[in-house]
């Protein structure tokens, strides 16, 4: 293991994430992992890493680190400028860093999360086989206790390999999402969908929502002009998938994300597609959101394609 970076400034929130902590939902332990899987998986692919290699999820930029040893990095996701010794680096491709360099990830105008990956992956104290940081559960991260990355933290790479010419992989530009101030989220009908009225199904996709500032890794609250109404009794708490769109009593949707609790008692009108979750992970407060109903088969085909492409398994 080699010490790779010393954190000078962590920014709003920086957490160590691998692909997630799985197999423990029945014990009330949620999966954590990258909010924007697309960006996370690309960063590992660009560097020739295993799909599960741990990265730093940087929220809203403002991240600054000193390089302690030569390494190869990539930054994906959506941020402002990525600067190495004040020189602009292209994101979504690998770049070499040398001991003594300084890396800065600036906040961007749009988008919310970026992913700093190192060839070999960052190390942490695994808990239940994962370093995914879930703050509310006190699990994961550098020390296993769920703490985010902080100033003066030193991060190690699990292995340092010399750069190779095959590591200039970068996705075709039309595969790199462009983030603006508006986004459309594909949603498939599940759970209590049929118990909402057709008028509510229509309302969900016809009106514009705004991502509120009441959002974190557990969930994102959306504000719409007209509430989605639920005309039935309270439901019994049942398992809650990532991407579920819950409708609480006030009728404003809450979309459940990676740190969500495992059981939930609000009715659900649908679940986001994989790309919908990735897009919502980049929707800072004020982003305009539209929903779009898609058949479940379409959402399944997308997930299959993605997992096959990135070699996600287990």
């Amino acid at each position, binding site marked *: 293991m080699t010490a790779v970076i010393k954190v000078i400034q962590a920014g709003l929130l920086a957490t160590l994430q691998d692909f997630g902590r799985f197999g423990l939902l029945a014990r009330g332990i949620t999966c954590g992992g990258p909010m924007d899987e697309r960006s996370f998986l690309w960063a590992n692919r660009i560097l020739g890493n295993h799909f599960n290699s741990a990265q730093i999820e940087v929220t809203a930029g403002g991240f600054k680190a000193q390089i302690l040893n030569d390494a190869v990095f990539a930054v994906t996701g959506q941020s402002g400028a990525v600067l190495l010794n004040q020189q602009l680096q292209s994101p979504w491709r690998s770049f070499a860093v040398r001991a003594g360099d300084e890396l800065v990830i600036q906040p961007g105008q749009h988008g919310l999360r970026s992913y700093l990956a190192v060839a070999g992956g960052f190390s942490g104290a695994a808990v239940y086989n994962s370093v995914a940081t879930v703050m509310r559960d006190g699990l994961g991260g550098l020390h296993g206790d769920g703490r985010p990355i902080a100033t003066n933290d030193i991060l190690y790479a699990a292995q340092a390999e010399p750069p190779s010419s095959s590591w200039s992989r970068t996705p075709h530009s039309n595969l790199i999402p462009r983030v603006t101030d508006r986004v459309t989220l594909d949603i498939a009908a*599940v759970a209590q969908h049929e118990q909402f009225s057709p008028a509510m199904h229509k309302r969900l996709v016809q009106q514009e929502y705004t991502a509120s500032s009441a959002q974190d890794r557990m969930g994102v609250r959306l504000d719409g002009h007209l509430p989605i109404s639920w005309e039935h009794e309270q439901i019994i708490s049942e398992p809650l998938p990532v991407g579920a769109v819950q409708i609480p009593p006030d009728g404003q949707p809450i979309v459940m994300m990676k740190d969500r609790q495992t059981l939930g008692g609000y009715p659900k009108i649908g679940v986001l597609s994989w790309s919908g979750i990735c897009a919502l992970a980049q929707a800072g407060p004020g982003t305009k959101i539209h929903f779009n109903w898609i058949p479940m088969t379409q959402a399944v085909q997308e997930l299959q394609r993605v997992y096959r492409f990135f070699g996600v398994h287990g």
Partner: protein
Amino acid sequence: MPAIKAAAINAVQISFEQRIAPTVNDQVHQLSHYLNEQAPAWLQELVPAYHSVMVYFDVLKASHDEVIAAVRAVLSNDQWCQPLQPGQLHQIEVCYAPEVAPDLARVCAATGLSAAQVAELHSSPEYRVYALGFAPQFAYLGDVNPALHVPRLDTPRQRVPQGSVAIALQQTAIYPQASPGGWNLIGRASSWPQLAPNDRVQFQEISLAEYQQRQHQ
């Protein structure tokens, strides 16, 4: 035949009768146990709740239709409803003194019971662990005596102290970590074991002095 439907892009949910009841919850745990034992190649994990089970599967190994058909086949005979060994019985000490029970007075007012009666009614039954959820090690226990049924708080507390023992209608639980919470706090436990679904729990009343002694150990 319970409802079996796609519940997520990579999951199917089986929903038994929509009630919080031991007989329904038994079915949930019997089915989970059976599917775990069978371990089909596509199975990733199972999440049992009160009356439902979520089955997460590998989308590269099966489709929703295949998983639904497999579950339907399991449910169509009696193999899956083997009575389970009752889970372990755990005795957990609880202090019901007002110093560690901020909602005790309110619960007394709402139910017409004295503090001593609340403690007595809460610590008499052998509760079952219906499910784990909400937070790691948060166990939903039931059923609370009907005389002690009090609904959740209108506004949840920002912070419930770790170890708080709480009730909400027929459910009771120990908050394993400080967290926000909307249930009525009627006591505090100083220690508790790891609980598994279908385990049994009996609370034992201890005095404030005994509780404070435990805290210092």
